[in-house]
């Protein structure tokens, strides 16, 4: 509104979180804030989250980003879902699709009909056969979702797999183009206001002192402002999510370019495989209580398919989050606020959730309203809690045994909320409703069924068609999905036509 004071925003850290925040603020709130980002090239970025969720499309759209340009610049590929290999039992495989099973539009979810078939016939095809996204993924096909909601080709969504190291510079160009200021420098101290306890300024190695009204902590694991200066406690979730390290090593892509990310169960954790245009990202997320760095490194080197293009690099972390993400005049975004392993590609999503909530609750005056802060923290807590439960499900719903890590996670005490959800699904295929969370019904169904939590009963309304009619309809749906997928272009062909990466000079 005219006459509103301009809020001076200082962003600390220039990785993915920092530049996403900067770009969003200058683009969406040009008349409410001035943005100044401080980063040091001497400090590396973690660059997690090369794999994303479909929500990133909305973020890019709001920023006016051209998709093909963005994909070329970040050497991106399309992503229709996540493949989980060896989770329920060694040899198992399923895809958690970005899309529904069947049309997703009936009163009764398709999995009830599928359960009914499976109860009577052992030869029932896997539930993924009725999903457009799963079928396309396994066939390495890609096309854009059809805008006509009556068509089966409209029942999927997509995200990207991209090089996070290149995303930040891409956003930086946008943000600086719109007036964001950047200062290069290492932060050596944080000055608090003696009376209010708010962050007053940051001090750089060069002696420069930078004041601000609102500070956004994007400093990563070190959590410079909210963790160190403001001492907001960290809520530790490692009792349920014991993985605390990752060893990462990219390699050349040799196989087909799969339009999905893979998560493969390993002896003490799991391994990611993220195919980009120019290379494949690999990493082994493991629990240091169950394996050594040496063994983890050896296991990863052993497992990667292509020629390695860098030395293995080890990262350390802890699952959990700051009790509050917005404290006083400081908002933490990204790893400074918390960490959840990238099993379901949620890192960038969490950054995005924090940014859009901040934009909506952006301070109206230079002083912060505690109401806005509380609402921000309530919404961010919900996001973290729901993702946490969904991640724990992957470890807990397993029949793997004989390895100490898997024996531990299989038998551990899970949060009551999750325990009840699993029970509800196992009985009659019901999904406890949580519409606001990032993972909707189809995601939970995919993981339950994919990891052998098979409902013992089904919705009674699914008994309506006769057995023959049901079998016919399901088969018709399955062939339609297959037929439509097989007319779509090959993923690599689509990318080469649409958004080939710029060849390095």
């Amino acid at each position, binding site marked *: 509104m005219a006459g509103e004071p301009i809020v001076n925003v200082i962003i600390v850290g220039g990785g993915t979180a920092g530049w996403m925040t900067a770009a969003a603020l200058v683009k969406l709130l040009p008349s409410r804030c001035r943005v100044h980002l401080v980063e040091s090239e001497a400090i590396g970025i973690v660059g997690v989250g090369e794999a994303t969720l479909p929500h990133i499309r909305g973020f890019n759209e709001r920023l006016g980003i051209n998709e093909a340009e963005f994909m070329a610049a970040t050497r991106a590929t399309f992503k229709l879902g996540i493949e989980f290999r060896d989770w329920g039992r060694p040899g198992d495989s399923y895809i958690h699709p970005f899309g529904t099973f069947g049309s997703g539009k009936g009163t009764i979810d398709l999995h009830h009909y599928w359960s009914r078939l499976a109860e009577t016939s052992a030869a029932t095809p896997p539930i993924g056969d009725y999903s457009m996204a799963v079928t396309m993924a396994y066939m390495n096909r890609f096309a854009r979702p059809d805008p006509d909601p009556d068509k089966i080709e409209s029942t999927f969504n997509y995200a990207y797999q991209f090089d996070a190291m290149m995303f930040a510079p891409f956003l930086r160009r946008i943000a600086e183009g719109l007036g964001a200021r950047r200062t290069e420098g290492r932060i050596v101290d944080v000055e608090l206001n003696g009376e209010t306890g708010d962050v007053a300024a940051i001090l750089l190695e060069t002696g420069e002192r930078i004041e601000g009204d609102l500070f956004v902590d994007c400093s990563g694991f070190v959590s410079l402002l909210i963790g160190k200066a403001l001492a907001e406690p960290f809520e530790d979730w490692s009792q349920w999510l014991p993985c605390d390290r990752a060893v990462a090593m990219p390699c050349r892509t040799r196989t087909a370019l799969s339009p999905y990310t893979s998560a493969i169960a390993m002896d003490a954790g799991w391994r990611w495989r993220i195919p980009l245009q120019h290379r494949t990202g690999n990493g082994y997320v493991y629990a240091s209580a169950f394996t050594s760095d040496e063994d983890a490194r050896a296991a990863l080197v052993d497992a990667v398919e292509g020629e390695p293009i860098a030395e293995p690099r080890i990262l350390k972390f802890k699952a959990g989050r700051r009790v509050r993400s917005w404290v006083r005049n400081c908002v933490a975004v990204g790893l400074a606020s918390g960490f959840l392993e990238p099993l379901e590609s949620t890192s960038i999503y969490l950054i995005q959730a924090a940014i859009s909530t901040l934009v*909506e609750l952006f301070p109206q005056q230079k002083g912060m309203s505690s*109401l806005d802060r509380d609402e921000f923290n309530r919404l961010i807590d919900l996001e973290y809690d729901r993702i946490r439960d969904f991640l724990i499900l992957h470890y807990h719903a397993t029949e793997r045994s004989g390895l100490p890590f898997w024996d531990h996670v299989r038998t551990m005490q899970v949060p009551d909320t999750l325990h*009840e959800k699993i029970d*509800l699904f196992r*009985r009659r295929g019901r999904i406890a*409703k949580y519409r606001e969370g990032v993972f909707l019904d189809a995601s939970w169904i995919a993981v339950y069924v994919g990891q052998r939590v098979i409902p013992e009963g089904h919705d009674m309304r699914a008994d309506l068609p006769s057995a023959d009619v049901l079998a016919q309809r399901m088969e018709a749906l399955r062939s339609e999905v297959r037929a439509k997928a097989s007319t779509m272009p090959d993923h690599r062909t689509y990318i080469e036509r649409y958004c080939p990466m710029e060849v390095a000079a």
Partner: protein
Amino acid sequence: MSVGAPIRTVVVVGGGIIAWSAAAALKRHIPSLDVTVVSCPVPDDAIADRIICTLPSITGFHEDLGLTEADTVVGAGSGLRVGTVFDGWAAGLAPYVHAYGSYGSAVEGIPFHQMWLRARAVEAAPPFDQFSLAAELARLRRIGSAAPSTASVGYGLHLRLERYAALMRDFAIHLGVKEHSCSGFEAKLRGDDGFVDSLTLDGGISIGGDLFVDCTGPAASIRSALDDAFENWSSWLPCDRVVSDEDQAADAAAILDRVFATECGWRWEAGSSRGMVYSSAHAKEKAAKDGTEIRMRQGCRSEPWLRNCVAIGDAAVTIEPLEWANLHLAHSQIDRMIAMMPGRDCAPVELREYNRQCVSEARRVRDFVCMHYVTARRDEPFWEDVASMEPPASLSHTLALFAERGRLPYYEEETFSRDSWVAVLLGHGFEPRGTDPLADLLSLDEVNRELKRHRDFIRDFAQAQPMYRDYMSSLSGRAPR
């Protein structure tokens, strides 16, 4: 763990709209069930069975059953309605319309009311309800036969209660529902697990079943035999009397109802129905002259579904009919009962999820109704009392967020849309201190252009629609006789 045997026989108890609707829906969606209605007289205090106004959601309930407008409007003699005029709720402000459907349309993700607030901060803007197509149609006594892409209108019904109940009964019996009439019964519980075993009717017949659906009104004759835990809302909703009557001379073409704030409650004029709701503690004398007066205790059963007995309608939730959500809540409970039908063991884990959703939904309707009182501006003792109470936490949260910059929080199981919340809040003059920062993306000129564009669109569109009377007679002309 095993899901065990499925439910095969269901006994629905009650004789009104709710009981017959439950029975018809059960039989229609799960034909393998053996459904019996034990029909008994509907008590006077079963509000959901006795209010003629419904929300637009009734259309979806009918469609799912396979009932058409020919059955429910022409056949049962119902009228259409698009909302309510609130008169006298905020001193000094003109009456406003809470109509169903959209108010304005969002531009680039900016909610319409944010644009309206911005425009208004600078100069006078037309009242918010002038941006509702439904309100404009109602003003012109027209019905939208076409559906534009930038505005929506929801149509609820004015029921003729007896004809509508007869329609549901006929339909249920046509589907294969059985009926036993009685004037009273006794419920017998099983000794080992406390489940309902059977009902012994006053004629001596005993009726057993796997599941008992209690639609007997607030007394909940069967469900209350299991436990009586009740969430009492009367500190937030102090009105405890409802008086209703019929007015044969009513204007049959009025598709907006009127609700007037009174000294110690409110009164309505809706179709042919007249009535009032008030707080007996605040009334100087008995406020009612004519009509049937009932007592009401507003609140919700803590566990609407316990063991093999589920309470539906007033047996589960009693709320004053201020926003006409009573039948809607019953429909929603019926749909949920069917969608979440457990096994014969009625496992607690399954009932917990049912109860959680059911209670959350009821509480948000409570919040919406309660919001009318909290934000009203009148100075009689009753209104001062309700304005000074501490609202339920979820409502406080909603009001605090809205007061800040016009945001509304998301709640699961919300009945009334954001547009409905905004229409009433702004109608009461409850305006936020600031606007959504995103609304700054449009210049004030753009905002004003958008407001004018939408206003013109509504006026032109509504003018071109048929008159309500003509529409209704063409409907009955088309209907099979």
